């Protein structure tokens, strides 16, 4: 039995971005320098707990940087892509373009 051909672009896709919410999180963060947790939650229309869980996954995978601070006495969590996350996102999109057959 021959070994599977791994030249297809699908093998270069990021596992972490297979989850639709994680894909949306990274897509949103890729557009901007940073987003506050609440803004991202509203943009994606998910619950705090879902977003929090997926952010933790992406943080562990090295995609997302989480910064905690205060505005006055209120805590504020700011999210941004890491440099590694930006380059992996770009590569992921290029792979999707290769699969979709778009230039």
């Amino acid at each position: 039995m021959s070994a599977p051909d791994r030249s297809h672009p699908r093998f270069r896709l990021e596992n972490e971005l297979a989850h639709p919410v994680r894909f949306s999180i990274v897509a949103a963060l890729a557009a901007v320098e940073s987003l506050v947790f609440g803004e991202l939650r509203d943009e994606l229309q998910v619950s705090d707990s879902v977003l929090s869980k997926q952010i933790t996954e992406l943080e562990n995978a090295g995609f997302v940087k989480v910064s905690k601070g205060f505005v006055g006495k209120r805590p504020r969590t700011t999210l941004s892509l890491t440099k590694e996350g930006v380059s992996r996102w770009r590569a992921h999109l290029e792979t999707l373009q290769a699969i979709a057959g778009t230039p």
Partner: protein
Amino acid sequence: MSTSPTPRIPGGHPRDTEVSSTEAERDQARRRLEEAQGRFRRLPASIPAAFITYGMLCAIGSLTVIALHLAEKVPPTPGFASATLVIVFSLIWVAVAMIPLMMFRDRWRRGLGRRWVLLMAAWGAVWVLGVVVATTRFGLVVAPVFFVLFAVAIAGEAAALRSRAGGAQEGTR
């Protein structure tokens, strides 16, 4: 002959050995790209309010240099330091101009953060140069440079906006 379980690829599609993509894969890839493109276009502020701050800073810089140039021509008056007054009020307005930027954070388009640091460094350098040479004829040459700075800032942002509109699928550039 042993059979291995069907492996899965990232994204949940069954792995096959064909080099070409299946129609389902292409459809899903296109949907993902469309979503990325949509978020990329929609999320950042079209023109961040930071450029209002930058416009204020450039106006303050230009007027400070001109005011210092004119202050030099005011006859000395005991107890009245015209140049100091100009510098103090200039710095107060610089601080005031920065307040909205710190209080209200826009969604900055990716790449603006680095450009903002460069723009502020350029503004700081021109401001220092302007204050140093304000009392000489070079002051009147430096004052209009702030207009150029602001024009460069706006032109850079407009170019980034056009570039994003045309190449949103590239993710970040």
